[in-house]
């Protein structure tokens, strides 16, 4: 690590001119959400970040609220990388939309002629959600909604598409995590769903 340390020092940001021995800033590596801190993370200008205005917090804030993809320590230089806020916001817009009032997702049910839309923020947890869905689609359903995840014997399973586009069973993750990653809901036929449920 010694050699790496030397080259790190050359590229480290400081207030003084390179070559002068400015006092080393404490390298408080911030790791959130379990992402491994790379050696380069140390070299960022924490001196700069101490002077950072609220705007850098704002840029980071979106990552914080979401909790899943935390910005690495690298991100703490104000206004760097030089990208317009408009563009930054667009790329993160999906997350931001989730934070704003109302988190509407489409709900489809296999065989039903039309879809519905619900506000995930309007429910406190999975139980309330299932009850609401039960209520909404009971005119189409021929059986009861499952009370537990994917238990066989029920007609339907509630699944959702997450932000990566994968089809997931509702109920596995904590509620907060669910509503931040759920993009749409799909009420599946029990026969199709059995494949998901039988993994347990």
């Amino acid at each position, binding site marked *: 690590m010694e050699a790496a340390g030397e080259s790190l020092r050359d590229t480290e940001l400081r207030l003084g*001119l390179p*070559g002068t021995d400015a006092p080393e800033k404490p390298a408080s590596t911030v790791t959130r959400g379990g992402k491994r801190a790379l050696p380069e993370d140390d070299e960022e200008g924490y001196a700069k970040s101490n002077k950072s205005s609220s705007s850098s917090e704002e840029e980071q804030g979106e990552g914080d609220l979401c909790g899943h993809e935390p910005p690495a320590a690298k991100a703490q230089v104000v206004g760097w*990388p030089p990208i317009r806020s408009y563009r930054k916001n667009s790329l993160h817009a999906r997350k931001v939309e989730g934070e704003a009032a109302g988190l509407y997702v489409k709900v489809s049910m296999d065989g039903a002629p039309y879809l519905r839309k619900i506000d995930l923020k309007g429910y406190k947890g999975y139980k309330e959600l299932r009850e609401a869905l039960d209520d909404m689609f009971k005119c189409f359903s021929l059986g009861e909604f499952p009370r537990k995840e994917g238990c066989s014997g029920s007609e339907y399973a509630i699944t959702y598409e997450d932000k990566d586009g994968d089809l997931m069973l509702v109920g596995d993750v904590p509620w907060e995590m669910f509503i931040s990653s759920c993009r749409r809901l799909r009420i599946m036929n029990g026969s199709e769903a059995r494949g998901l449920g039988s993994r347990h």
Partner: protein
Amino acid sequence: MTYFPDEVVEHIFDFLVSHRDRNAVSTVCKAWYQVERLSRRSVFVGNCYSVLPERVMTRFPGMKCLIVKGKPHFADFNLVPHDWGGFALPWIEAAAHGCPGLEELRLKRMVVSDESLELLARSFPDLKALVLISCEGFSTDGLAAIATHCRSLRELDLQENEVEDYGRQWLSCFPDSCTTLVSLNFSCLKGEVNAGALERLVARCPSLRGLKLNRAVSVESLTRILDRAPQLVELGTGSLTVDHHSEAYRRMINTFHKCKLLRNLSGFWDVDPRCLQSVYPVCPNLTVLNLSYAPSIQGADQVKLIRHCFKLQKLWVLDCIGDKGLAVVASTCKQLQELRVFPSDIYGTGTAAVTEEGLVAVSSGCSKMNSLLYFCHQMTNAALITVAKNCPRFIRFRLCILDPGKPDPITNQPLDEGFGAIVQSCKDLRRLSLSGLLTDKVFLYIGEYAARLEMLSIAFAGDSDKGMIYVLNGCKNLRKLEIRDSPFGDAALLENVGKYETMRSLWMSSCDVTLGGCKALAAKMPRLNVEVINEGDESDEMEENPSDAHKVEKMYVYRTLAGPRNEAPDFVWTL
């Protein structure tokens, strides 16, 4: 020449297209000044505080098109406080009084209130074009005023503005009698627009050539719009979320087939990659493609799309295209002139999306390249030297290595030689942005070779005052210099004070310039505004008795005929 009657001189001036040429002829003699000013139709004000609006209106009473820029460029990156200034209202008020024939207004980086849009709309019912780029301060209410009153509007172009959304009715405010729209861009609006109103508007504007929708417009609506306007040349799609098995998707493909004139494609919000095939029929004709707002499209899908685009001249993508994807660009897009590669993972911890390899590939395949914006994780001197050799026609070269101060990873050297090669080879270079580890040497090269350079952006670079001095003494066409986090101090600032009157502006933040240095500059050069921007909190010493030795956090210097601003906020001190 003074023997010619004014009409002849005026007719000769008609052939002068650029602002700079017209400015030049106006300084020849009083007669020419008069002829020129009365016949000037388009006026460009690069810094809204360099001259009073009234003065502009008085000088150019026949003005038809006014272009004004407000905040300094670094405002794009949150380096300029929110309420620093750049207000559009004084300009609109002055135009309302002094230039009733105004037909076009183009503003960039300015604060535009609803009040000013309303005044604009009422004062200029015959307004033909309104273009707002990177502006803020207005809402859909202001847009409603424009739509309501400007009955012969041809162009409404909103690019990357921060707009408050108060409802979807502004579009419905275009009266039925409005049939003149040629270009409409509302892609930056966040909220929904009335789909029916939009479709009816499109249907009654047969001259419509450009339409850029926002994210809220659905595929179904897009399909109906394209059915009515197959003559579109520029299209920004809305949200392209559609089930690729559905009827809606099939209809969309059919509609795209009919758009034979489409040359410019953007948008692609929320697109399902499986739906990209619908666009393939128009790709062979495209000259401009912007995929930079579509993080959902993986590299492989981007590549599949680009393989069809062999006439492309301008391409904006995200770095998930990868070096391999750029190699495909190099082999497919032989007409490419402008490439922008944006980072998709801004806070990423290191899956290197594009590196020097991608850039080298594009440079060897696309010799016509003249404009580049490239965000990457690393760059080498060897690569830059190769790029310089392959593409000597660069006019704009902006390289951003995401890690500030990062050296050449192979040799561990600064990137002085690489950038030096660029400025030496590209004799027409007008704009340059530097990044990576750089010493004073790169500035020596820039001062020596970059004769046509007009704008230079420096960040985390240089060793000493010498660096900045090389640039100020060398680049005779320099107009804008912006520097952040670099060790340039008072000696550099004061070395060539006359230079600043030949430039539009100088920005320095987080450098070594002191309050005393700024005061000295202000004292020597009364026709410059030397603004010191202090956003410090209460504990900041600046509030009490600031010593001259105190380093200035942010400084903005610009030449002006208008004197110090009288509406500058408290935290801006004009020395």
